[in-house]
């Protein structure tokens, strides 16, 4: 191996190896039209559906009439959360489907670096999917989510981090329980949707559920979104709350992924991936 390769970098996470995996999934996306279509399809269908509901409710609901973008913003930001979680889980499952994990983990790639590559691919997929739907909403419903300005960036970052955290947890779960558990990738996030207040204020919930909502970064984001749209104020306190929770969530997401990876090494699941 003399002179053939870069010097080994010890325990430092390697950007080169993270980039290698991002490249692997970029090749895959580039070669597969259906995969790209799937990225944009569902966010766009959801946006169109809620766009027409908004058009109807603007003339039938005084609450919606105050801020006509509240439902469209809700659906687009919810898709940021959903797509970012799905992005992590699906990209990881691509490795399982292609029975490639054995090769990956005999290479110098660390599990943490795989995790970082999953997050990067999730970001790319979310930008393509939700970004596409958000752009289509401008000519179709004369609504631009980008009019929220900088707060939108704060909402986006918080939601994507929460999505990554759940995506890492789900990926570890699928590694541990096999591809028979892959449906978790599509359904897991919906457990938090009712208590996230995507389409209604958190105080709509029963009091005990409001405590649950307080523990979710997403509920603070959606409350913050409504503050911007209805009251034209940026609630930094809500965003700070979400950010602090996200530190805990992302740490727990990585910790669970690494713990499941260790269990997979004990049980021999890196070579024999199946149902």
């Amino acid at each position, binding site marked *: 191996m003399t002179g053939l390769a870069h010097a080994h970098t010890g325990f430092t996470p390697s950007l080169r190896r993270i980039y290698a995996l991002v490249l692997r999934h970029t090749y895959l996306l580039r*070669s597969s039209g259906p995969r790209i279509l799937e990225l944009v399809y569902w966010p766009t269908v959801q946006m169109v559906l809620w766009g027409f509901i908004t058009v109807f409710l603007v003339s039938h609901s005084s609450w919606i009439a105050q801020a006509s973008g509240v439902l469209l913003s809700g659906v687009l930001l919810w898709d940021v959360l959903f797509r970012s979680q799905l992005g992590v889980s699906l990209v990881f499952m691509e490795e399982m489907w292609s029975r490639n994990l054995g090769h990956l983990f005999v290479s110098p790639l660390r599990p943490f670096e795989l995790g970082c590559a999953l997050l990067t691919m999730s970001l790319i997929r979310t930008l393509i999917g939700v970004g596409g739907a958000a752009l289509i909403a401008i000519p179709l419903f004369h609504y631009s989510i980008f009019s929220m300005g900088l707060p939108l960036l704060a909402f986006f970052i918080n939601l994507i981090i929460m999505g990554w955290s759940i995506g890492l947890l789900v990926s570890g779960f699928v590694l541990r329980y096999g591809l028979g558990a892959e449906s978790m990738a599509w359904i897991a996030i919906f457990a938090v949707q009712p208590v996230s207040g995507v389409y209604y204020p958190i105080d709509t919930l029963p009091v005990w559920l409001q405590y649950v909502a307080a523990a979710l970064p997403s509920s603070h984001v959606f409350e913050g979104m409504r503050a911007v749209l209805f009251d034209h104020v940026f609630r930094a306190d809500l965003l700070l709350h979400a950010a602090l929770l996200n530190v805990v969530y992302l740490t727990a997401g990585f910790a669970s992924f690494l713990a499941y990876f260790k269990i997979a090494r004990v049980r021999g699941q890196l*070579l024999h991936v199946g149902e």
Partner: protein
Amino acid sequence: MPPSVVSVSRISKHFDKVIAVDDVSFDVALRSTTALLGGNGAGKTTTLSMLLGLLLPTSGSISVFGVDMLRDRYQVLPRLNFSSPYVDLPRRLTVRENLTVYARLYGIINISARINALCEELQIGRFLNRPYGQLSAGEKTRVVLAKALLNEPELMLLDEPTASLDPDTADYVRGMLEAYRKRTGTTILLASHNMSEVERLCDDVIMLRAGKLVDRGTPAQLLTRYGRQNMEEVFIDIARQRHLEITPDSQQVAKQ
């Protein structure tokens, strides 16, 4: 006596109540080609997986290049590589894309030059731009070997390197491995069911049965010990537990 590249000490692997590998110890000498032989379920793949760090042993220790694989495997992973019929490459990616990704993972400096050199060595140039999933079994085996050679490993672990190949392709792969070892002096540990392959390539054979190491020696030593003409007959003797009746020497080896 050449130094050991791999040193395995009393490793066992239990899956609940199933004992896949039971108190196995062996060394692999530098620049040797060593075979792990045994029937289905003998523990070959499990042993290789533990050597690679893909599987954690229930007990025992493994060192590769003097490094504890259970604690510091990332120090040695850049120096080894492997292939296995149980592990695939992404099927939609072309051969070139697959090799590029793995070249980056191994930190290869001049990726194009390295891939071109492997194209020459393994004759994979004509399907370099085809998706891996569209290749024949023989072509896939060559691509996986190219992946296994990307970093010019000092240690190669090969799980059934010629499984499901036609005789011509299998012979080609064996010739390539022989030439590569001569050129680079790499150490090879391979698991195989093919006895002619073992006779041709290996200078040391470790026999496993039901997770235990039951005999060991050069192919010539084993043929003499069992009074057989070829390794296939030796394999059958061991698989059917005739070895303990045949020679007290083998009992001694098994105890060690």
